């Protein structure tokens, strides 16, 4: 991998962010709307007297972390779709740029954009709803990294599907995270799911991240087991995603789809 080629990919997407208002919408507008709506909901909940301690903090923490996961997964796939929409794929892949350099550049851009969203949400939560994520942040970072790795894995799988099936799969870029949401136990503990769904939820790294997050926010300490489970599942899925992507890419090459994508 050559750093200057990765810099080329970063520069291409940095120019796109500067010139395309949609990116500002994705990066700032939706995170702001999201945290404001959920923030007002927590203000309403505060009027009740039967809330368990820590519920409001867990809710806001979950909104922020889910926002990060969703943004990361979506921006990975949309970043690739932008090459496809602009018919830039042939120029890129007819150059010495490798697929791994391209994906690395895209990950760096996506991570930076997701971090902007995270910061904006954390700032609004602190200023408007007196929820300060900073004291718990060091203990949350391992779970955030697990979420980022799973989002990256999903992004790679969706990008592979778009390579192979072109824009027929582009809706997945925006909707795939939503598909995982009910089973990821974002706003409720695993124990509240129907018994038959729990095994399915347990094989999602997102579930372990949100379980771990709740434990940290409720001051029950860092859950090494949730982190370990999440990481192990992530590594399995990540390796699978790389093979899947390679398979989809070669399949697209064999069918001549790289030069015909629209």
């Amino acid at each position, binding site marked *: 991998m050559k750093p*200057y*080629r990765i810099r080329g990919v970063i520069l291409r997407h940095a120019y796109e962010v500067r010139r395309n208002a949609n990116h500002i919408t994705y990066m700032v507008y939706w995170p702001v709307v999201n945290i404001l709506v959920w923030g007002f909901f927590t203000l309403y909940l505060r009027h009740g007297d039967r809330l368990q301690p820590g519920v409001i903090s867990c809710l806001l923490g979950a909104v922020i972390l889910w926002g990060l996961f969703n943004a990361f997964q979506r921006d990975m796939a949309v970043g690739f779709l932008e090459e496809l929409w602009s018919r830039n794929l*042939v*120029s890129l892949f*007819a*150059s010495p740029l490798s697929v791994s350099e391209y994906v690395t550049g895209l990950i760096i851009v996506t991570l930076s954009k997701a971090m902007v969203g995270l910061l904006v949400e954390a700032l609004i939560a602190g200023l408007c709803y007196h929820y300060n994520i900073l004291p718990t942040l060091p203990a949350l970072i391992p779970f955030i990294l697990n979420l980022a790795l799973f989002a990256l894995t999903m992004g790679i799988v969706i990008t592979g599907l778009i390579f192979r099936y072109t824009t027929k799969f582009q809706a997945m870029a925006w909707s795939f995270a939503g598909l995982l949401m009910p089973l990821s136990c974002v706003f409720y503990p695993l124990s509240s799911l129907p018994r038959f769904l729990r095994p399915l939820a347990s094989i999602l790294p997102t579930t372990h991240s949100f379980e771990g997050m709740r434990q940290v926010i409720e001051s029950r300490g860092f859950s090494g087991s949730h982190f370990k489970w999440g990481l192990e599942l992530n590594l399995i899925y990540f390796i699978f995603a790389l093979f899947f992507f390679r398979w989809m890419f070669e399949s697209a090459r*064999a069918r001549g789809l790289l*030069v015909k994508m629209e």
Partner: protein
Amino acid sequence: MLVTVECLTKIYGGFKAVDDVSFVVQPGEVAGLVGPNGAGKTTIIHILLGLISTNAGAVRLFGKSLDADREQILQRLNFTSPYMAFPARLTVLENLRVFALIYNVRNPAQKIIELLERFGIEHLKNKPISRLSSGETTRVGLCKAFLNNPELLLLDEPTAYLDLQVARQVRDVLLDLQRSRGTTILYTSHNMHEVQRMCNRVIFLSHGRVIATGTPIEITRKILKEDRASPALDEVFIRIAGRGPDEAISN
């Protein structure tokens, strides 16, 4: 040999887009890859770039295999076609800066300006691609193609969207750059006068197969079966285009 293609075959479903094609391109040569629509020209160019995998046969560029040495090979060549595009919101300068980084161009700012001036579009440098005409975008593609001083240039119908005057200017620039740097060019076009003017040697394709190889005059005599004094590739083209697959090959 700079380009060696041996027994190349590409099949889509049951359709043979490229059928047992072999040819070579010598260093410094301007070789034309011509033929009617569906002859397999663009597919061959895309295979040479590694964008399409093959069913059979071998391709060697600079004596190396694309599977083993993709990065080194693609660093030494470049490609353009009016059918590819650039990110539309980015300006001409921004697009070329991105590719200058990808190709690791030294003094990119100077190189980009030099090429924009050469192709007569320096005044468009700060315009987004979306506001350019097809002909202007084609010239941006040509600037991209020369960014890395390629030893081998693959040009797929490079003058297709250009008006006659600009097409002539572009041909002059291409020939000038080819002569001054010894760049090898593999050129596809439907404009047979352009092919006669540009190419030392022509590889004539029909229905995925090579049906004749030689200088324009050799091809003319061979296909028309007449002792002509000057090349007439447009007549050859019309003769070939009117034939069915079996007839084209057997004749």
